[in-house]
């Protein structure tokens, strides 16, 4: 499975077709053996009287068989779990090594770097990020009005992983980069390891300067690794620039968004934008006693001064 990094690998559809063809061959031989005996019996009854009954029955049979074949073909193609089995064929030590390597940018960009095509590590990282995001949303007291906390967290994380992978794969198709969809999913998934670490630390320790430092260092390292792998697989200055610039921008901005989206300050802005029926007085809850007392003092002093001067 370590050698699975060429772009001409077998796809879902090929393996599904193979399974379907094997099943169909079995079915055809079984049917051929069964229907021969039946046809022998009914051939004698094929007169005018039995025509409608027997013909109708055969037509119905044919329709049923065709429908069953189509349905089982679709089922074997998309719901066959064995298609995904090779992508989960990993050892724990390999997962650990790949997690550490995702933060170490490669130095050699002259020939294509190897990208492992596995889905276990990325999926576990996405689920871990969902859990960390939930924790961050809860501690910041975010209130989601049109949906649920869990739905938002899952949608954000999976949407980023699948959506940005597809977008970068599309860009790499335009820029003639040598990378498959599976490899892109795997690369971006492992790139989320840096995000998980930064969010885990900064959702619990609320220092802005610490967050910016970690954003640059850890986010930057994981972005550099992904960018270096893509550069090694692309030819030409402009395609490299487009592809890597887009990926770097999206990756770094996503971490920035995740940190600030679930911060205590932003909840006030969310309420302001959303609710026209919230009375405006509620928003001005900042230091009113100090301001009010200062105003009152100044007013009293000025009145006293006016009274004294009269």
């Amino acid at each position, binding site marked *: 499975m370590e050698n699975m990094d060429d772009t001409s690998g077998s796809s879902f559809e090929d393996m599904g077709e193979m399974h379907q063809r094997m099943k169909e061959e079995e079915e055809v031989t079984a049917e051929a*053996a069964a229907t021969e005996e039946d046809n022998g019996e009914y051939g004698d009854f094929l007169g005018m009287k039995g025509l409608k009954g027997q013909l109708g029955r055969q037509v119905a049979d044919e329709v049923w068989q065709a429908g069953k074949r189509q349905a089982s073909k679709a089922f074997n193609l998309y719901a066959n779990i064995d298609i995904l089995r090779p992508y989960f064929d990993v050892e724990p030590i390999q997962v650990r090594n790949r997690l550490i390597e995702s933060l170490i940018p490669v130095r050699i960009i002259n020939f294509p770097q190897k990208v492992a095509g596995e889905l276990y590590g990325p999926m576990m990282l996405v689920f871990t990020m969902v*859990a960390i995001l939930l924790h961050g949303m809860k501690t910041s*007291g975010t209130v989601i009005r049109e949906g649920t*906390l869990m739905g938002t967290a899952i949608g954000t994380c999976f949407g980023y992983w699948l959506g940005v992978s597809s977008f970068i794969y599309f860009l790499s198709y335009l820029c003639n980069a040598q990378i498959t969809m599976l490899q892109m999913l795997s690369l971006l998934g492992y790139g989320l390891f840096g995000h998980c670490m930064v969010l885990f630390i900064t959702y619990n320790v609320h220092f802005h300067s610490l967050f910016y430092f970690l954003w640059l260092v850890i986010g930057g390292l994981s972005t550099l690794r992904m960018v270096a792998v893509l550069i090694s697989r692309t030819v030409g200055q402009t395609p490299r620039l487009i592809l890597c610039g887009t990926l770097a921008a999206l990756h770094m901005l996503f971490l920035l968004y995740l940190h600030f989206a679930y911060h205590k300050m932003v909840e006030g802005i969310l309420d302001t934008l959303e609710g026209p029926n919230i009375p405006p007085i509620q928003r001005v809850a900042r230091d009113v006693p100090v301001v009010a007392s200062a105003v009152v003092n100044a007013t009293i002093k000025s009145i006293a001064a006016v009274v004294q001067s009269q």
Partner: protein
Amino acid sequence: MAEVEESSKPMFAGLSDISISEDILVEGDISVPVGSHNADNDFSTLDEPVKDTILRDLRAVGQKFVHVMYPKKSSALLRDWDLWGPLILCVTLALMLQGGSVDSEEEGRPQFAEVFVIIWFGSVIITLNSKLLGGTISFFQSLCVLGYCILPLTVAMIVCRIVLVGGSGLVSFVVRLIVVTASFSWSTFASTAFLADSQPPNRKALVVYPVFLFYFVIGWMILTFSPSQ
């Protein structure tokens, strides 16, 4: 059979000289037992009173609860799996965790549907993961084990609710933290005692991690539960 062989001759032309060795004796007795008394045995539970059926099922569920609380390496959970226990536990947990309507309070506690969906979809994903990693356990057996191992967390929820009646200060938070942590580790340990046996030996960690994450999320939901004012 002869016609089938004829039609497939062009494809298998080179194999026509293969024959089965005569040393292998194929003999036996094919007889289908007359199933009248078997059918009677199968359907005899239809005639018993409903109370007997319910009591028998409840006794089976209770026995599995005992197996979860004292996880030994027995195969009772795997052999006669059922999904009644997980359903009861899931509904109980979701009812206790659910919040009121969103407008009535600021906290935004999880709704019933949210907890229900998290538990069932989490179990399905863990089951798929363990099957993809080469596990020998069947789909529903795994769902059964994961559902039954929510029992310690449900007990922790009840204890937390009782503790919260007394007040919600720092002491109660510490007590709740200890209770939830203990029960979540108990759940993880109990489910790995059943699930990890069905995996190849060097991949146990790959299966344990999602289970750990799943019970961690449920435990976190229980810990951050606060009662309405």
